[in-house]
């Protein structure tokens, strides 16, 4: 197969992959945002239920859906645990490194999973305030590192497709399609 790399996950990653917390869509979510794409092989959808408490916007509940590797699922799961009960302002301060640390560490090639999780969170927070039409003063105008990298990953595929010289194929009959409905 393609060129391989060892992926010695921590027990925490395996545990959350096996028993993810807060998995699944949320019907009454106030905001739903997605980061990544199927073509990247890495996609997280985050659902947040937010309520106003003591002048703060607090995450009541958070759930996720994930299409991605074991690290992606574990990162999304731990993110939902970390934001629950936090104000959006506190949640905004969570970095990709915090997620990786909380998982007991990630193999460096999997850092992008925690970046994607935080990318989805920040996108959700911006989208929440955009819908309300009010922008808190602590919300930066410029994109954070996680948001920039998420955008870059989403755009990576166009580059991949354009740069592939060996992707010429000769159509031939029905090919190998074996889909069943």
């Amino acid at each position, binding site marked *: 197969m393609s*060129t391989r790399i060892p992926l010695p996950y921590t027990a925490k990653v395996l545990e959350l992959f096996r028993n993810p917390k807060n998995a699944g869509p949320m019907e009454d979510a106030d905001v739903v945002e997605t980061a990544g794409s199927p073509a990247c092989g890495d*996609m997280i959808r985050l659902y947040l239920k937010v309520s106003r408490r003591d002048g703060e916007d607090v995450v009541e*509940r958070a759930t996720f*859906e994930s299409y*991605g590797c*074991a690290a992606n699922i574990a990162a999304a799961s731990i993110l939902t645990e970390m934001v629950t009960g936090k104000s959006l302002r506190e949640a905004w301060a969570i970095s990709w490194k915090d997620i990786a640390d909380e998982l*007991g560490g990630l193999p460096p090639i999997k850092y992008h999973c925690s970046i994607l999780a935080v990318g989805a969170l920040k996108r959700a927070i911006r989208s929440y305030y955009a819908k309300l039409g009010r922008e808190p003063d602590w919300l930066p105008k410029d994109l954070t590192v996680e948001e920039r990298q998420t955008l870059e990953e989403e755009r990576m595929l166009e580059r991949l497709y354009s740069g592939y010289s060996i992707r010429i*194929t000769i159509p031939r009959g029905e090919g190998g399609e*074996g889909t069943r409905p």
Partner: protein
Amino acid sequence: MSVRELLELHGRPPREVYFDLENSGYVPPEVVNEMLPYFNSVGYGHPSITHKPGWEAYEAIYRTKELLRQVLGAGGIEEFVITHSGTEANNLAVLGLALARRGTRGKIVVSAIEHLSVIHPAEAAESLLGFKVVRVPVDSEGFVLPEVLQEFVDRSTVLVSIQFVNHEIGTVQNIEELSKVVKEVNPEAVFHTDAADAFGRLRIDLGRLRNVDMLTLSSHKIHGPRGMGVLYVREGIRLEPILRGQLSAERLWPGVENVPLIVGFRKAVELAFSDFEGNVARMRSLRDRLVDGILGRVPDVLVNGPRDPARRAPDNANLSFLYVEGEALTVELSMRGVYVSSGSACTSRILEPSHVLLAIGRKHEEAHGSILFKTSRYHTEEDIDYAVEAVAGAVERLRRLSPLRGDRQPVH
């Protein structure tokens, strides 16, 4: 990070079925038992030194090559070079020939779906020695078409390397015809075929395949020990060694021969060929049971590679499970005791999916969900049925987590 903790949490599943014979394999006790005496009671000497343990080592190497000569219909045992892996054999074929013909700046023609141990040495021959690498496209089932290959070969071609059987999707190339096409255009071009995935599955007759000049074998792909490969080099083809050092029994590969592995490989060859047709029929029927079982239980699965069983390796099944990612599936299946690999980008050093699946026209999202299974005579029907249930359960669980399907149930 403690892998020990990971393994403790993982635990040992009630049943274990290993299908990742592409990447490494189960070595049966008969093979291990054959190897053990060669560590300390017989043939533990250097095969080129004049003492009894040395002569015993030499005799063991001789017998392995003699068996290869017989099962492959080769001319003589001096046509076999033992290397320390299939990867090294492919490197020797490509770079050894490039070194022997350096200065010609000719063409090296490879298929787009070759193993990376052919593609990467070819690229090195380009960047270091000035050769030009040409990749021949394949059709949607992985076949190199003779009329397409003909377009890519010319008088400047020094080497053509086309796999006998593709390691990921099991495509069986018509090597007799492809090698003939090459020689018709350019009789001086050397034809190499990586037969690591064909050996023990298809009959290979080098007496008949007159246009095949070099052929690669790998021990672990036939349940032999890892770390042992073979390059067949037809008499008259000149290669230069790519590793330099003290030569011994091998004139193209320096260093001390690893006789226990060579003996283990010979036993594995004996076992594969003692009931060749029976072994092949068994891997085929187990493979069919696996694929039919999975397609019958799991919706939205693509079969990667040839549909025609006559043109597909009997042990190979490569399936893409849509809406889930392959690396997650390998982890989930591992916890259920089913060991497989994926062509997903997430298992890769460069975060790109399998070049083979992209070359047959699979989209990235289809390649990400791919799983490779290889069956063998050591699997039982119970193993297969267990694996089908495990795959169905694993795919179902990960699809429930996935945002890519509309039929999910809300958690609240």
